[in-house]
Structures are given as structure tokens and as C-alpha cells.
């Protein structure tokens, strides 16, 4: 049928244009790549890859509003496009829309892990997500610190007034000032405790992989009952041997299952201790 063959001719041409665009991209000729992808889009506007490829070029040129446009279009065509959600997330972060950006990055991460947990994409998305989450925490925690500090000072003032100490020399020790010292110390303890969660510390062992020694991102459990970081245990099985690294029991990829409880525990910990998002 004439229409059918015209359509498939267009599709073929679009594919060729995509290939051309890819070659330009590899040579860092982003303008030329954009032109090629644009032509491909004109011919076949419903192929999500053309839109995400073009978005990638816009990203290289830091043209974030165009990145956002092209990614949104790609998502309309394919809800599960990892690259589209990822770059949309980055574009939103650039616009300082942190919450929306983080949501898109999280979506990209989940989709990426489903497709290829060991891929470089998953790691890159995680790095960006962790950076954004860390900034969100930094912002929120400095507000909290400041509020806590103001409140603490107000309380200390009130305590001094309670003991009528404003009029007395500092080193005047009597029952009243001793009682005051005690309560002051207790007050400081209370405030220290209140601000504890925001003080960077060591992540508990049980939330860390025994191979990466880092907090879990995508934990899986083996039949021996040991939990590892998914990407790393897969690499171990491939490069080192088909055994559980700690118990040495035989182990195959098919025996790994997501450890959902630990995943939730890690998320809860990170929600409370956002400083742990910091990657060095």
C-alpha cells in the first residue's frame, strides 16, 4: 500500500538521521546533532528516543528549558524512559524546583534499577539524587539549628531571670546559683539531644554493606541470610566466584532477593539523617 511504504520510508530516514545525530554527538558537534534529531522528530514525532537524544544535546549546551520540554514530550510517549525522567529531574533542579526534581530522579532511579542495576546510569542518577537530597537536608537542618539556637538562648535568659542572677556578680556561689548551674546544664543537654539527628555521625553497621562498607542503596539478601549491595554482589559473582562472600556457601544470581525491610530501614534513616547522603 502506498501510504504504508511512505511511512516506512520516513521511519527509515528518521533512523538514519538518528544515527547521523549520534555521530555528531560523539564528536561534540551538538548543534549539528540537534539539527539531525530535529529532522528525525519532524519525520517521526512519536519516537521517544529522538526526543531524549535531543535533550541530551541541550543538556550538553546547558539549555535547560529545552531539556525540560523535550523530556516531558518523551515521557508522554514513554512513561518508563529512564533518561527522560533523569534529565527532567536535572532540569528541575537547575530551576531550583528541588522537590519535583528529586521526585523525577527517584523515578529514574527506580526504573533504571529495574532495567540494569549494574549500569553506569544507575550510579550517575544516584549521585545526582544524593547531591540534591543532601542540599535539601542542609537547607532544612540549618533552619532547624537556627531555631533551636534561638529557643535555647531564650530559655537560658529565662532561667537566669528565674534565679534573679542578673544583678549578682558571676562568681557569687550560693544555693541559688548552684541550682541554676544544674538546671542550665540540664537545659543544654536537652537541646543537645534535640539537635542530635542533624549532627553527622557514623551510619550503623547493620545498614551498611559488608563489601562497600557504605550505606545500602539497593540491598539484596542471600540464602545464607547476608545482605549486600546489589550491584557489588553481582560484580563479585561475575569476577570473583559464585559463593557468598562471607559464608562461602555456593551462590547464584538467581538466589538474590531484594531485602525490602532493610531498604525501608535505610530510607527511614536517611529521612531522619540527611547528612548521610553526602558522597565524598
Amino acid at each position, binding site marked *: 500500500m502506498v501510504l504504508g511504504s511512505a511511512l516506512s520510508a520516513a521511519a527509515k530516514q528518521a533512523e538514519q538521521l538518528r544515527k547521523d545525530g549520534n555521530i555528531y554527538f560523539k564528536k561534540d558537534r551538538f548543534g549539528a546533532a540537534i539539527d539531525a534529531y530535529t529532522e528525525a522528530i519532524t519525520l517521526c514525532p512519536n519516537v521517544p528516543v529522538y526526543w531524549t537524544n535531543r535533550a541530551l544535546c541541550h543538556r550538553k549546551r546547558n539549555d535547560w528549558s529545552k531539556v525540560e520540554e523535550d523530556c516531558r514530550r518523551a515521557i508522554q510517549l514513554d512513561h518508563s524512559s529512564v533518561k527522560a525522567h533523569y534529565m527532567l529531574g536535572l532540569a528541575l533542579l537547575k530551576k531550583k524546583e528541588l522537590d519535583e526534581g528529586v521526585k523525577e530522579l527517584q523515578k529514574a532511579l527506580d526504573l533504571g534499577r529495574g532495567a540494569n542495576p549494574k549500569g553506569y546510569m544507575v550510579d550517575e542518577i544516584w549521585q545526582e539524587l544524593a547531591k540534591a537530597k543532601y542540599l535539601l537536608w542542609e537547607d532544612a537542618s540549618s533552619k532547624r539549628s537556627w531555631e533551636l539556637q534561638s529557643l535555647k538562648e531564650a530559655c537560658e535568659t529565662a532561667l537566669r531571670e528565674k534565679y534573679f542572677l542578673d544583678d549578682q556578680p558571676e562568681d557569687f556561689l550560693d544555693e541559688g546559683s548552684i541550682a541554676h548551674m544544674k538546671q542550665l546544664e540540664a537545659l543544654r543537654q536537652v537541646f543537645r539531644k534535640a539537635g542530635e539527628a542533624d549532627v553527622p555521625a557514623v551510619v550503623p553497621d547493620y545498614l551498611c554493606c559488608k563489601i562497600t562498607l557504605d550505606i545500602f542503596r539497593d540491598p539484596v539478601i542471600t540464602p545464607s541470610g547476608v545482605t549486600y549491595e546489589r550491584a557489588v554482589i553481582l560484580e563479585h559473582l561475575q569476577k570473583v566466584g559464585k559463593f557468598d562472600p562471607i559464608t*562461602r556457601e555456593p551462590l547464584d544470581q538467581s538466589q538474590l532477593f531484594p531485602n525490602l525491610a532493610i531498604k525501608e530501614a535505610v530510607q527511614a534513616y536517611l529521612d531522619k539523617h540527611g547528612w548521610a547522603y553526602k558522597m565524598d
Partner: protein
Amino acid sequence: MTSSSAHPRKALSKIACNRLQKELVEWQVNPPTGFKHKVTDNLQRWIIDVNGAPGTLYANETYQLQVDFPEHYPMEAPQVIFIPTAPLHPHIYSNGHICLVSNTMDSMNQNICVICLMKKMSFSSFSDILYDSWSPAMTVNSICISILSMLSSSTAKQRPADNDQYVKNCRNGRSPKETRWWFHDDKV
């Protein structure tokens, strides 16, 4: 598992760097007893002072370990050797190469390694953790404990039977990881 000689060494991968930084922090908080890490800028090569445990043949003696980490640590085992003068031990060659054998079948050795217990391994397979039986769950800390255990369980201060031949063989700077080991389990 193939391992290349230590020279020339490729730089540490990102994963190796992250992991080693974590191990270093943990070491500073919780160093293994009898060991001291000499602080340098070089994350890829650790120099560690070893103190012989009290009540053993090596009490009050100090030796030095050199640990070199490959690009793909912890997927690949580090190279661990003693810097000469190496301790006199049936499984340590005079050039510092170690044949990490644990004669834990010896009932006198109470230093049963925590790692062994965790791994529920048969003790004879503990022999070559630095070479064929490496696992990425092992750390510098656990290697040090194994080495101290090996030293402490020694009943004689002597060189391995094939010391001279082995050292001659290694003269061109061969890594101990390239050597094929005859494990001395049955002779101990």
C-alpha cells in the same frame, strides 16, 4: 583468578578508593590489636607496623607489612608482604612473601579467627585467603588478624624448607600472587 605483578600499578578505581577510605576511618577508630598504620598520603599502599603478641615466639618484636591495593580492590586481593627483615616463620620467605597458612587444627592455637567462624569454613581452606580464596568481604583489618594468628601459632622460628629456591625464583620482582603455592598444611 589472575593477578598482575605489582609494577606498574594502575590507580585505584572509585569503588576501591571509597572502600579504602572507609577502612581507614574504621581503622583509626578501631585498629586491630598489635598493629599500627603508618600515616601517609598514599591510599594505595599501606605500611603497617606489626607487634608480636605477648606469650608467643615473636613477643616484643616489631615487623613491617606492606599492603598494595590493586585497581579493582576489593574484587581483587591486595598484595601483602613483609618488608625485610621478615619474621622467621615456616610460612614466611626471607624476601617477605607470605604463604598464609593457618594450622588451626593444632589444638594449641586458641586464636581462632573471627572471620573463620563467620565463614564456617573448613580450616584447610583458610590457607590461601590472600590468593585463591580471597573474598571481597575481607578487609585489611581481617587480613592483619589472620597474619597475627599465623605468627602466634608458630612453634618454630625458621624459614620455609624451600626458602632459597623460592627467593631465587622471585628475584625479578615477582608478586607473591603469581607464585603457585605448595601449601604446607600436611607438613605442619
